[in-house]
């Protein structure tokens, strides 16, 4: 085992972030699982702060891109400019070249900008002009979406949502947490956490997470969880893809590593299944017309599959 533990990062993040335990854990799971994270929640809930704090805790480079309707792909990935003194083109790398990239309000930019980002997320490299540039490793995109303010937004298609390893819902703090926020931040600037690990540590943790054992019966449980979303259901149009199966397994491994285990157990799978499935299921319009919660539907599907 590495001397520095992923759990140290969680402890460090909670020195800055009040509450939001689920979100902080989801960020770590995304980091260990080697995927990207979609944070959905209203503004003002420390989504940006959480991402900045994560980058600071890992001594990584952090960049934030505010997505707007007039954003261009080159504003994210970079562009070639002509240097008149040198009389040649030089490449200006975009803000995507960082370890932790916050794509704020990703659904405010048009589809071509979204797809430029999502392609970079998938390929982990960017091509500008004739040249390809690898993105830093580790590279994690944390995108945010505001579920309430949908005017002037461009809905992310399911195929693009599928590229996020997990989606976490960011909720309001409770009264006690809000009081702590008031005491901690009202009179002073937010201080970012101290670095508790480095990027090589993250790569080592990812290798450890990759080696976490998932028993055969647990694999069958994962397959059943995904398969049940594809069975005919009054509130589901299309179930989750096989990428969801891989995502649940990856996240269960990461969850086991956070618990300092070298094997995953049914609790790990059941805990991460909603994170991996929620954004990969195409819920029917009846969810909205009949006022049914998609989370509740997903919860009932997961509960219908008995763990081993």
């Amino acid at each position, binding site marked *: 085992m590495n001397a520095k533990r992923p759990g140290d990062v969680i402890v460090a993040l909670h020195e800055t972030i009040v509450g939001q335990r689920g979100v902080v854990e989801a960020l770590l799971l995304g980091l260990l699982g080697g995927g990207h994270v979609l944070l959905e929640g209203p503004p003002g809930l420390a989504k940006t702060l959480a991402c900045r704090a994560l980058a600071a805790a890992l001594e990584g480079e952090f960049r934030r891109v505010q997505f707007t309707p007039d954003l261009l792909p080159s504003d994210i990935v970079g562009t070639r400019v002509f240097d008149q003194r040198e009389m040649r083109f030089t490449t200006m790398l975009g803000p995507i070249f960082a370890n932790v990239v916050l794509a704020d309000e990703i659904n405010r930019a048009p589809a071509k900008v979204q797809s430029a980002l999502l392609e970079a997320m998938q390929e982990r490299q960017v091509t500008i002009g004739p040249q390809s540039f690898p993105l830093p490793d580790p590279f994690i995109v944390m995108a945010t979406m505001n579920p309430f303010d949908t005017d002037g937004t461009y809905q992310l298609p399911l195929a693009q949502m599928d590229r996020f390893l997990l989606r976490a819902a960011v909720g309001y703090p409770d009264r006690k947490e809000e009081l702590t926020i008031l005491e901690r931040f009202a009179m002073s600037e937010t201080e970012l956490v101290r670095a508790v690990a480095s990027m090589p540590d993250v790569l080592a943790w990812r290798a450890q997470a990759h080696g976490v*054992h998932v*028993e055969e*019966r*647990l694999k069958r449980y994962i397959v059943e969880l995904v398969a049940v979303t594809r069975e005919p259901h009054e509130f589901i149009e299309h179930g989750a893809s096989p990428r969801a199966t891989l995502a649940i397994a990856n996240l269960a491994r990461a969850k086991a590593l956070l618990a300092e*285990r*070298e*094997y*995953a*157990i*049914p*609790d790990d799978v*059941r805990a991460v299944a909603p994170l991996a499935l929620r954004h990969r299921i195409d819920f029917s319009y009846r969810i909205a017309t009949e006022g049914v919660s998609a989370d509740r539907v997903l919860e*009932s599907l997961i*509960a*219908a599959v*008995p*763990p081993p």
Partner: protein
Amino acid sequence: MREYCRAAVLALVSAALTQTAQAQSLQHVIVESFTLSADTLRARAGAPFHLLVTLRLRGRVTDIENLQLPLLASLQVLGDTRTIGSSARGTLYREVVTVSGPGGTVAISPATFDAIDARDGKAKEYSTNPLELHIQPTATPPRSLALLARALIVGGVATALLGLFLIWRASRPRVVRREPEPKPEPERPPTAQELLREALETLAADPTRRGALRARNAVRRMVGARDGETLADVIDRAAQLDRRLVIALPALERAAFTDDEDLAGAISGAHEALKEASR
């Protein structure tokens, strides 16, 4: 003896019916678990106990066909109850066979269930685990003691008759009240300690993944774990759970889900934890 012959004939008839059933169309189902268990592993000769066949299926199924009970020729079958229940979470079929038998070790072969696996459309024969029971023989008193006991009973009866006659003479026309007959003591369910010891013995006798799973199931049953509950649910719900069990349950979880390289160490750890919990 007649009862044993009846059981054997029943089993033969059952086997003949299997042939007919196979010729018929099989049910399309997804089998999740199929087990054979007994309510006690320490039955007494002549005392009734129960064999339990449990079949869990995915989806709603109203009837179970082509399920064959094991051959129970060496046991006396006293009764058979079947229940089937289904919900959105699946179907649960239970068959409880009440039996009794002579002392000694009884090996019971697996129950079988013929069906078509709805996942791949193939006809399959599902089997439960086999079962081995140790039925303790009842102790017979030595002959001289038996004779003495018989003499005491005869003497006692004679004295009682004389006493009754004298009482009747003295207190006529009063009515002598009869004492109610003592009820037979009901079969005692196994205690938590017995179940723990059973899990411990299972793990010691079969230190494999299968044995670890059986021990895990026994301990989960002991702490009242419901179907579909994970380790976290059990520990969260049972706040009053013994601290030693809180250590034993994760140890069994490790033995059930760790990789093969770590299995021996995990089983040994689970064994130690169970030993500590059963003290």
